[in-house]
């Protein structure tokens, strides 16, 4: 190795760690638990490490500390870590960030070398305000129950949904194609859903495309997590720092900077992701990672005679009025952006009850309905449709964690401000009684992970029985598929006076809306058992302890034949 530069080594180690972290993410989200249940715990763990969802779960979803341990830990590590070590998350543990690096790197042969922005301060002013407005839209949107902006901009959401739908769906098409050609491999039952595919692939593709053209454009100019962490990065104890007097204006830093936040004159700490690449290439040590140097005014003025270095005044020089201080302007720009963002956020929050609160608002439907016209059911742990859909960024972690495949991304059924929110599609599968994988996996707290016994009592919907549609009545044949599958004994096959054959009898208070009866009901064209989602989840009666008819116990000794 040529390099004896510790910064070069550090920047390489960072790159390797980030790539490994991304690889783990990719493995975790590539295929849903219906296909590859082994990766589900990895995916659920990694989802917990992302800062915006962690904050959402703690502050907005108000998960009890016992259930939000991992999120609290992640939030603390990232917030305190950023204050001490700078904005490390974005270059180390953000999968979308590393994806953009990978996109830029893979395309590096096809485009000209990166150049820093020529007028950093102008650039700063131009980007700061949109960035803060985007952050405000995301955060106040989540607080107000209109998570559309988060669904499009929250980095983990964009990555997880985008990677799974692009890689996972496409590779399952390939694998099933091979299977159809006679190769015996397990058939994947991933279903093609145009809206979910578009919602996933468009933002992901746009951000990766921007990554190819301009590396970490998204991180510096749109990402809400990046904007918050960037603000903290400005006051970080340790971070990349620029000593302008030592700069010889060689431009090496501007060429390698993935965030386009540094040239020789300025370093925009709010967009710097601490990748250390500039430190690694700086020939003079003007860029370094560390504590602030004490008493910059006492530093000797560069004697290199370099024109620009002489033209740019340092804090100690005499003419602050004539040439403005870039540090101060940068701070002012940041402050203006943050203030505007806060104002926009406050305005949105004030307007929100009018936008989201009213039932029937096109932004947020309190009682979303599916194609059948029946209310859609939200997964267990949602507590209520409004609470759940108002917090859900449609990251799809629950959809991938579901072992039965009953969860499906909606389009705009939950409202225009709540795109992609998953619901239970009983036409394809039903909710497994013993399972609480969705609420255990949810990183945002839209689904709360609670006592598994409570999950078995949480009524997410209620079944309805139309006996005249039941084949026992309409076709005079024995059935009982609904009662066979009912986990709580809410539907039973009983002898009813006036009916020649035993018919299903529904005891609604015990029904938890798992949908097993609807999924398996063989009646056509209309199912005799159908489930309607509950807008506010209820606690169902416990499973019935008594059999419908007295059970005769056969003798246990000897043979009955």
């Amino acid at each position, binding site marked *: 190795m040529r390099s004896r530069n510790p910064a070069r080594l550090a920047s390489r180690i960072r790159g390797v760690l980030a790539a490994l972290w991304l690889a783990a993410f990719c493995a975790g989200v590539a295929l849903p*638990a*219906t296909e590859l*249940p082994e990766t589900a715990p990895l995916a659920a763990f990694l989802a917990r490490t992302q800062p915006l969802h962690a904050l959402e779960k703690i502050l907005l979803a108000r998960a009890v500390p016992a259930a939000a341990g991992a999120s609290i830990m992640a939030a603390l590590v990232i917030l305190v870590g950023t204050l001490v070590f700078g904005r490390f998350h974005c270059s180390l543990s953000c999968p979308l960030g590393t994806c953009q690096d990978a996109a830029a790197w893979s395309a590096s042969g096809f485009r000209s070398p990166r150049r820093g922005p020529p007028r950093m301060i102008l650039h700063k002013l131009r980007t700061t305000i949109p960035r803060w407005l985007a952050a405000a839209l995301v955060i106040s949107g989540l607080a107000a129950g209109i998570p559309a902006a988060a669904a499009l901009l929250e980095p983990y959401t964009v990555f997880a949904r985008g990677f799974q739908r692009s890689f996972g769906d496409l*590779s399952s098409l*390939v*694998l099933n194609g*091979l*299977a*159809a050609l006679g*190769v*015996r*491999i*397990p*058939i994947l*039952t991933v279903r093609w859903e145009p809206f979910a595919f578009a919602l996933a692939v468009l933002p992901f593709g746009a951000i990766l495309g921007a990554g190819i053209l301009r590396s970490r454009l998204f991180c510096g100019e749109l990402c809400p997590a990046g904007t918050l962490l960037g603000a903290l990065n400005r006051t970080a104890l340790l971070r990349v720092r620029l000593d302008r007097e030592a700069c010889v204006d060689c431009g090496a830093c501007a060429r390698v900077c993935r965030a386009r936040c540094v040239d020789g004159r300025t370093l925009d700490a709010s967009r710097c992701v601490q990748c250390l690449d500039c430190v690694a290439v700086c020939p003079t040590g003007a860029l370094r990672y560390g504590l602030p140097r004490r008493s910059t005014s006492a530093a000797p003025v560069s004697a290199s005679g370099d024109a620009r270095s002489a033209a740019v005044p340092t804090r100690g020089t005499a003419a602050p009025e004539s040439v403005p201080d870039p540090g101060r302007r940068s701070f002012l720009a940041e402050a203006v952006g943050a203030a505007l963002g806060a104002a926009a956020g406050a305005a949105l929050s004030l307007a929100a009850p009018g936008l989201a609160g009213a039932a029937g608002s096109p932004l947020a439907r309190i009682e979303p309905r599916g194609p059948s016209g029946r209310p859609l059911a939200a997964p267990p742990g949602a507590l209520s449709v409004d609470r759940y859909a108002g917090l859900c960024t449609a990251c799809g972690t629950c959809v991938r964690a579901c*072992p*039965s*495949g009953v969860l499906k991304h909606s389009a705009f059924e939950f409202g225009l401000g709540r795109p992609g929110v998953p619901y239970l599609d009983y036409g394809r*599968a039903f909710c*497994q*009684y*013993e*399972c609480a994988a969705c609420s255990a996996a949810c990183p945002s707290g839209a689904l709360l992970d609670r006592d598994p016994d409570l999950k078995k009592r949480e009524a997410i919907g209620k079944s309805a029985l139309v006996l005249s549609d039941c*084949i026992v009545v309409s*076709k005079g*044949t*024995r*059935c*009982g*598929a609904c*009662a*066979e*599958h*009912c*986990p*709580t*004994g809410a539907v*039973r*096959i009983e002898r009813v006076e006036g009916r020649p054959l035993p018919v299903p009898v529904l005891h609604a208070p015990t029904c938890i809306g798992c949908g097993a009866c609807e999924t*398996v009901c*063989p*009646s*056509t064209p209309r199912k005799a058992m159908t489930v309607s989602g509950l807008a506010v989840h209820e606690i169902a009666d*416990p*499973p*019935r*302890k*008594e*059999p*419908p*008819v007295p*059970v*005769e*116990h*056969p003798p*246990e000794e*000897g*043979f*009955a*034949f």
Partner: protein
Amino acid sequence: MDRRDFLKTLGRGAGALGAAYFLGPAARALAQSGVPSAGSGGTAPGALPGSLPDLVAVKGGTSASRVDAALAAAGGISRFVPKGSLVVVKPNMGWDVRPEMAANTDPAVVKRIVELCLASGARKVVVFDHTCDAWRAAYSNSGIERAARDAGAEVAPAHAESYYQAVEGRGARTLKGAKIHELLLEADVFVNVPVLKNHGGAGMTCAMKNLMGAVWDRGYFHSRGLDACIAEAALLRKPDLNIVDAGKVMLSGGPRGSAASRYSEQRLLILSPDIVAVDVASARTLGPGPGAFEYIEKAAALGLGQPDLAKLAVKRIEL
């Protein structure tokens, strides 16, 4: 190493990984498909020779010792499983519930049967079920997947229609054809290993009803008449041997079982190549008797077996 070399290496690595990802399962599948089998029925014997019992019932002991005793009394596993044969062992593992619920076949029974088949020289033993609950959860939480694998069986998926192939039901009036799992078409020996329990729709689920888990379209059974279809399912592919797990018998709340379910500790295992005879013995064990279940009568009328146990040599063993 310069950047170009590094990229090439990386590209090769990624290519190899990608190829492994797509081709690995394919290669394994090709290797497994092996030579074409001789077809069903050719190597598997039908009924037992006269000197041996037609039906064996074993009471007491453990799940595994009942299997051992029943097969020993029936003349040994080698009577049913010739050397080099491909064996399908089809338990009931349709439900994502713990083994104590007795909604699925006892994993210890499946395990012992697989071990004996392999010890008898079977080329391969395959275990599958078309589950009612999510298949991976049911395979795993029933405990059968692990037990079968530990014993050396291959556990095959059965959750997608493309695993199933259409066959004709010869002599059937209702179920004239259905798609059954392709492994059954390849298998030399089909061992049906149901659990005996109460069933909300069919009254009792045992050997004949267990065949529904080898068929793709279960809804057809429900909508065309459960009793007729259950009886005629054995016409699609008749099991060569039926081994009924009646260790812990669910008396009510079946097939899934619930908190309200009642149980009977029978500690019983019933074995016979005659699918009607095992269901008759099982119906007596469950309580109501064979007259309560229309499909047993229909199957007997189709000539699928002997419903009158008095006409059979029945061997009863107490351990």
